C-alpha cells in the first residue's frame, strides 16, 4: 500500500488505506544523523551496501528498523530494478531536505 503523501509532514505518516506509522519505529529516528549521510553518499543501495559501511555495532544491529522507519517517513524509497530482484533503496528529495536540517 503506498504512503499517503499528504500525511508525510505530520507526526504520524499513514498509508493510503489509513495504516499508521508504527510507534515502535520512532526510537530509530535518532539514527538519521548516522545513516542518512551514508544513504546520500551511496545513491541507490542494497541492504548490504549500507550495512558494510556502518561501523558501529549498535547501529548496524538495528539497521533493518531504521530502514523501515526512513521508508515510512518518506526519506528513502524503493527503486527495485525489477520484480524479481534484490531490494534497492534510494534517498528521496525529502530525505535530502531532512539531511540538510541535521
Amino acid at each position, binding site marked *: *500500500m503506498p504512503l499517503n503523501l499528504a500525511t508525510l509532514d505530520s507526526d504520524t505518516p499513514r498509508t493510503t488505506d489509513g495504516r499508521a506509522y508504527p510507534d515502535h519505529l520512532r526510537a530509530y529516528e535518532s539514527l538519521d544523523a548516522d545513516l542518512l549521510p551514508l544513504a546520500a553518499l551511496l545513491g541507490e543501495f542494497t541492504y548490504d551496501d549500507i550495512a558494510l*559501511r556502518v561501523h558501529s555495532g549498535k547501529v*548496524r*544491529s538495528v539497521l533493518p528498523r531504521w530502514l523501515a522507519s526512513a521508508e515510512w517517513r518518506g526519506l528513502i524509497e524503493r527503486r527495485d530494478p525489477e520484480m*524479481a530482484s534484490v*531490494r534497492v533503496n534510494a534517498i528521496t528529495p525529502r530525505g535530502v531536505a531532512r539531511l540538510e536540517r541535521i
Partner: protein
Amino acid sequence: MPEAEPRGAFVDEDGAPRLLRCVVLFLDILGVSDLALDRARRDRNLVELDRALRRSSRDFLSEDSPWPSALLSDSLVVADATGPDFDDVAALNEMLFQTGILQLQLASHGFFARGAISIGPHHVHDGMVFGPALVEAYRLENRKAVNPRVVLSREACEILRSDMEGVSAPGETTQADLLRVDQDGVVFIDYLKVLLDEVDPIDDLRRHRSLVEAKLAETRNESRKWGKYRWVAEYHNDFCERLDRDDLRIDNPDVSPGFQGFSLP
C-alpha cells in the same frame, strides 16, 4: 570510505585461516531434497530457491555480504563476527533480525526452515566452514528445533537475558521483541514480527496464511510433515491473535497456539 572486511577477517596477515568469535546460524531449508529430485520441476525449483535466497529483501549469498555465508546442499550457514565495536549482544540481535528477514523471505516463496543460532569460535572463508559454534548450531537444529523454527543456544539466551537485566525497559529490547517462547520452553525467533515494520504487512500475512494452508493440504497424508506445518499454522495464529486480526487466522480445529513472550525468568 573504509569498509568492513568480514571475510578477510577470517585469515591472518600470513593468509592462514583463523577462528573468530561469531554468532552462527545453521538453517535447514525443508523440502529442498525433494525439490532437487523432482525431475519435472527441478529447473523451476532451482529458480525459485535462488529467488528466495537472493532476490528479495537481501541477497543472503552475496560475496560482499557483511554476513559470510555458505550453502551446503539444503542448509545455509551464516556467520556474524563479533569484534571491538561489535559485542555479543549487538551480533546476536543483528542475527535475530537477519534470520527473521531470511525466514520471511523464504516463507514468501513457500520455503519453511528449521535452524539454530549459537555463539563461539567459527571460521568461514573461501568455501571452508569450520568451528565449534557451527557444530553446536548443527546439533541444536538437529535435536532441538524439531519444528520449522529457529532456536537459540543456552549461551545465546543467557547473554540476551543478562543484557535485559541492565536496562530500564527490558520488554522494549530487540531480543524481547524478536523472540518467543514455545510450549516446550524452547526460545525461537518470532519471524513474523519483522513484517510489522513494513508499510504493507497485511498482504504478506495473507500470503503466509495461504502458503501454510497449501502445505497443510499437500501433506495431509504424511503425518510427520503435516505436524511441522501444523506448528507453523499455530505460530501464524498466535501472531494473528497478538495483532488482533482474527480474520487472518488459519481455520483448522487441530491448530491451537500456546506461546509466550521472551522475558526475564
